[in-house]
C-alpha cells in the first residue's frame, strides 16, 4: 500500500527528518509518535505534498504504485483528497468560515470529477456516516455554528469522501474536549482505510493503532507492534517516554527524561538521543541503524 | 522581545531627520530671506547662491523649503498632540470597560467625528474664524482623534487580558492606577507607531489645505502653497512644482516608513493591530 523509503526533509541546510522508512499495509493502522519537534508532522505533510514554503523532501514514498515525494505540484494535487487524505489538529480553523459545511464536503468530490448534484447528496450521506446528527440540516450550516468536535467530524467526512487508500490524522483529537476525544478515536478506527495516526499521546496510539513508529530528532528510533513496543521497549528514548507516562504510586517521583528536546539542527551527531541518554557511551557518536525484523530499534545499548 | 532594526526604519529615520534638521537650521540660517520679494531675481534659474532657483516673486526656493519644513512639523506636532491627548484617554476608557455605556458612547461619537474629515472641518472652521495655521492644526488634530482612540482601545483590550493586569485587578488596585501604571506603558509603543503614521497624514492634510488656501497664510512659506503657486507656471517653470512636491512626498514617506519600522522594531506581537490611516 504505502511504502516510504529514505524520506528526508530539509529546510535549507537543516535536516528536519532523516532517512525515515516504513510501510503501511492495506487496512493497517499505524501510529507515529513523538514529541513536538520530532519531525512527525513534517513526515506526514511531505506525504501530502503540503510542506511549508522553503522546506523540501527527498527520498521515495509510493502509494499504490504512485510516487508522492519529488513529484511536481500539478501531479500530486490530483492524488490529494482522492488517494490520500488528511485530518489536521485544529478543527476550529480548518474549515472555510464563509462556506456552508455541505458545500465544503461536496467540493472535494467535484474537484475529483464527480457531478455536482451527486456530490451534494453524497455529502449528506458522509455527514451521516461520521455520526453527525440531522446531516441534511447540518450540511446547510456554517462552520461557526458547529462545535469543535462536530467540525472535526466534518473534516473526517471530507477526508473519507473519495474513499482514499490512506488516511493521515495529525493529532486529530488534541484540540478536542476529553469527552469528545474517545468518540472521535473510535470513529476514526472504524472508518479509516489504511491509517497513519500522528500523536504525542501514548494512550491514544494504544487504543487506535496496531503498529507504532517512535520518532525522535527527525528519525524513527523504534518501530514494531504496539503490544511489544509498549511492554518491551528497546530504544532508551521509548523506555524513558513510557516510564514518564506511567502512573506512579503516591509519593514516588515521576521519572522524566533529563534535559529538553534540542532545537532543529542542534541534535548531537551519531545517535540523536545520546546527549539525554543515561546509557550513552562513546559508541553512540556513530549513528545506529534501525535494525530488527518486526520490532526494530536504532540503539547501541538497547534495553533487554 | 524586540524586533530587528530594518531597512525601512533606517530610511524613515533618515528622511524624518533631514526634515527636522532643515527646520531647526532654518531658525538660525537660510541662504536667503524666504519671504523677500525681489523683482531682480524673478524666476531665477538655479545657481549662484540660489541652489534651486527662485519663484515668480524672486523668493529663494531652497530657503522657502527649509522654512516650509518648520511649518510642516509645527502643524504635525500640534495636530498629532491634540489627537493623542484626546484620543488616547478616550480609547483607554473604552478599552478598559468594553461593555459599558460610556465605552459605547465614546465609540459612537468617535464614528461620528470620523465622518468629518480634516478638510471639511478646516473649511468649516475657516469659514467661521478665517483660515490659518491654527484652524488647520485644530481641524487636522480633531479629525485624527478617532484613529488614536480606536488604536488605543484595541491595544488596551489586548493588554487588559494579560496576567499582570488580572493580577493587579485581583489585588484591588484602582482602575485609574492600573490605567496609568500598567496599561499606558504597555500600549505606548503602539501609540508611538500611530503618532508616526498620523504625522504623515497630517502632513498630507496640511499640504492639501495650504494648496486650497485654507492652511498657512502668506507670507509664511508652506509646501502646499508653494505647489499651488507653481501650478500656473507648470508650462514654463515646472521645477517650482517639483521641489515642494518632492519635499511633501519624502516627508510623508519618511514618517510612514518610520511608523512601520517602529512597529516591527518595538513589538512584533503588536503587528496584529494596524495603525489607522
Amino acid at each position, binding site marked *: 500500500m504505502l511504502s516510504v523509503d529514505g524520506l528526508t526533509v530539509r529546510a535549507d541546510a537543516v535536516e528536519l527528518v532523516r532517512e525515515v522508512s516504513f510501510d503501511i499495509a492495506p487496512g493497517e493502522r499505524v501510529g507515529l509518535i513523538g514529541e513536538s519537534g520530532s519531525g512527525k508532522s513534517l513526515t506526514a505533510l511531505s506525504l*501530502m505534498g*503540503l510542506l511549508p514554503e522553503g522546506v523540501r523532501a527527498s527520498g521515495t514514498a509510493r502509494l499504490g504504485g504512485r510516487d508522492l515525494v519529488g513529484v511536481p*505540484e500539478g501531479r500530486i494535487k*490530483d492524488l*490529494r*483528497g*482522492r488517494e490520500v*487524505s*488528511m485530518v*489536521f489538529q485544529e478543527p476550529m*480553523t*480548518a*474549515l*472555510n*468560515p*464563509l*462556506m456552508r459545511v455541505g458545500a465544503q464536503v461536496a*467540493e*472535494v468530490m467535484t*474537484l*475529483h470529477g464527480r457531478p455536482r448534484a451527486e456530490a451534494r447528496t453524497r455529502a449528506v450521506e458522509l455527514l451521516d456516516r461520521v455520526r453527525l446528527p440531522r446531516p441534511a440540516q447540518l450540511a446547510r450550516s*456554517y462552520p*461557526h455554528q458547529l462545535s469543535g468536535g462536530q467540525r472535526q467530524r466534518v*473534516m473526517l467526512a*471530507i477526508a473519507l469522501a473519495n474513499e482514499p487508500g490512506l488516511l493521515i490524522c495529525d493529532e486529530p483529537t488534541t484540540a478536542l474536549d476529553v469527552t469528545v476525544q474517545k468518540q472521535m478515536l473510535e470513529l476514526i478506527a472504524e472508518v479509516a482505510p489504511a491509517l497513519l495516526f500522528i500523536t504525542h499521546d501514548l494512550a491514544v496510539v494504544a487504543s487506535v493503532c496496531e503498529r507504532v513508529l517512535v520518532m525522535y530528532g527527525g528519525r524513527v528510533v523504534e518501530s514494531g507492534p504496539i503490544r511489544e513496543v509498549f511492554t518491551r521497549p528497546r530504544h532508551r528514548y521509548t523506555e524513558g517516554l513510557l516510564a514518564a507516562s506511567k502512573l506512579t504510586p503516591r509519593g514516588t517521583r515521576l521519572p522524566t527524561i533529563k534535559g529538553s528536546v534540542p532545537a532543529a539542527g542542534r541534535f548531537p551527531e551519531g545517535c540523536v538521543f545520546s546527549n539525554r541518554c543515561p546509557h550513552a557511551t562513546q559508541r553512540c557518536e556513530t549513528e545506529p541503524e534501525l535494525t530488527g525484523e518486526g520490532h526494530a530499534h536504532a540503539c547501541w545499548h538497547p534495553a533487554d | 522581545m524586540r524586533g530587528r532594526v530594518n531597512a525601512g526604519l533606517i530610511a524613515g529615520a533618515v528622511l524624518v531627520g533631514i526634515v527636522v534638521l532643515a527646520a531647526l537650521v532654518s531658525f538660525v540660517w537660510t541662504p536667503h530671506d524666504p519671504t523677500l520679494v525681489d523683482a531682480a531675481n524673478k524666476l531665477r534659474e538655479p545657481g549662484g547662491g540660489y541652489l534651486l532657483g527662485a519663484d515668480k516673486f524672486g523668493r529663494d526656493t531652497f530657503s522657502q523649503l527649509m522654512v516650509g519644513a518648520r511649518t510642516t512639523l509645527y502643524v504635525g506636532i500640534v495636530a498629532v498632540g491634540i489627537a493623542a491627548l484626546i484620543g488616547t484617554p478616550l480609547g483607554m476608557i473604552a478599552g478598559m470597560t468594553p461593555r459599558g455605556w460610556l465605552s459605547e458612547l465614546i465609540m*459612537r461619537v468617535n*464614528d*461620528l467625528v470620523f*465622518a*468629518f*474629515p*480634516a*478638510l*471639511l472641518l478646516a*473649511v*468649516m472652521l475657516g*469659514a*467661521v474664524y478665517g483660515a490659518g495655521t491654527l484652524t488647520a492644526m485644530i481641524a487636522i488634530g480633531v479629525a485624527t482623534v478617532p484613529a488614536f482612540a480606536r488604536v488605543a482601545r484595541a491595544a488596551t483590550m489586548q493588554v487588559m487580558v494579560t496576567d499582570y493586569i488580572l493580577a493587579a485587578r485581583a489585588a484591588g488596585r484602582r482602575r485609574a492606577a492600573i490605567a496609568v501604571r500598567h496599561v499606558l506603558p504597555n500600549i505606548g509603543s503602539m501609540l508611538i507607531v500611530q503618532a508616526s503614521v498620523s504625522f504623515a497624514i497630517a502632513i*498630507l492634510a496640511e*499640504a*492639501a489645505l495650504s*494648496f*486650497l488656501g485654507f492652511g498657512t497664510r502668506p507670507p509664511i512659506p508652506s509646501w502646499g502653497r508653494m*505647489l499651488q503657486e507653481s*501650478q500656473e507656471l*507648470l*508650462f514654463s517653470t*515646472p521645477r517650482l*512644482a517639483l521641489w515642494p*512636491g518632492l519635499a*511633501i*512626498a*519624502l*516627508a*510623508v*514617506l519618511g514618517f*510612514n*516608513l518610520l511608523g512601520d519600522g517602529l512597529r516591527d522594531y518595538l513589538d512584533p506581537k503588536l503587528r496584529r493591530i*494596524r495603525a489607522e*490611516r
Partner: protein
Amino acid sequence: MILYLLKRLAVLLASTAVAGVAVFAFMALLPGDPAEIALGVNATPDAVAALRERFGTDRPPPAQFADWFGGLLHGDFGTSYVTSSPIGPQIGDRLGVTAVLVLGGMVIALLIAVPAGTFAAVHHRNPLGVAISAASQVGIAIPAFLAGILLVFVFAVKAQALPSGGYVPIAEDPQAWLLGLLLPWLSLGLVQGAVLTRYVRSAVLDVMREDYLRTARAKGRGRMGALWRHGLRNASIPVVTVLGLQLATLLIGAVVVERVFVIPGLGDLLLNGVAGRDLLLVQGVVMVLVVAVLLINFVVDVTYAVLDPRLR
C-alpha cells in the same frame, strides 16, 4: 440578519441627525448677521429686519434648525442669502460630477490594487513582489493633488495628449467628457490604488497562512486554486472596510482634485461658497458630504453581512 441591518440603519439615521445638529450649530457660530451682510453697511434697520424675516434668521435657532433639517429631508436646502438662488438644484448638479469623479477613481484604484496586492502577497519573497510593496509605499506618500499636477505635467504639458483641466458635460460631447476626466480619475485612482495595494497584500498574506487554505490544498487544489476559491473572499472582508474608508478619503480628495483640474463639482461649490461667505450653501454642501461618508459606512456594514455569515 434583519436585526443587524435594522440596527445599522438606526445608527445611520441617528448619526445623520446628530451630524445635522453639529453642522448647523457650528455654522450658527458664524459672527455677523446674514441680513446685515447682504444689505451692506448703509442699510436701514427696517430693511434689515424685513430681510431677516424673509431669511427666517429672526427666529430662535431651534426653529431655524427644524426648518433647515426638515427641508433637507425632502431635498430642499434653502435659498442662498448671497445669490438668492435655491441651493438644492446646485448641489444636485455638482453631486453628479463629483460622484462620477470619485467612482472612476475607485474603479482605477481597485483595478490596480487587487491584482498588484494579490501578486505582491503570493510572491512576497520574490524581488518583484517586494518591488510592488515598495512602489505602493512611495505611492501613498504622494497626495492626490500632487499626482494631478505631475500627471498634467506629463500628459498635458509634455505630451500634449490630454487637457490640463476643464469639464465638458457628457451630453455635450462624450469624447471630450471622457478625455477631460481621465487625468482627474488617474490622480485619485493611482494614489488610492497604492494605499489599497498595501491592504490587499496584507489581507491576502494573512489569508494565505490560514488553516482552511491548507485544507483546500489537502482536498486536491493547487496553491493558486485554493487561494482563488477560498482565499479571496475571506481576504475581501478586511479590504471592504478599508474600501469604505478609502471612498470617504476619495470624496475629500476629489474636493482638492477638482481645484487642480477646474472641475465644477461639490468641492468647487464648497470652496466658492466659503469664498463668497455663502453660509447656507457651505452648510448644505458639508452636510451632503458628511451624509455621503455615513452612507458609505452603512453600505460597508451591509456588505459585511452579505460576505460574512458569522455576522448574520
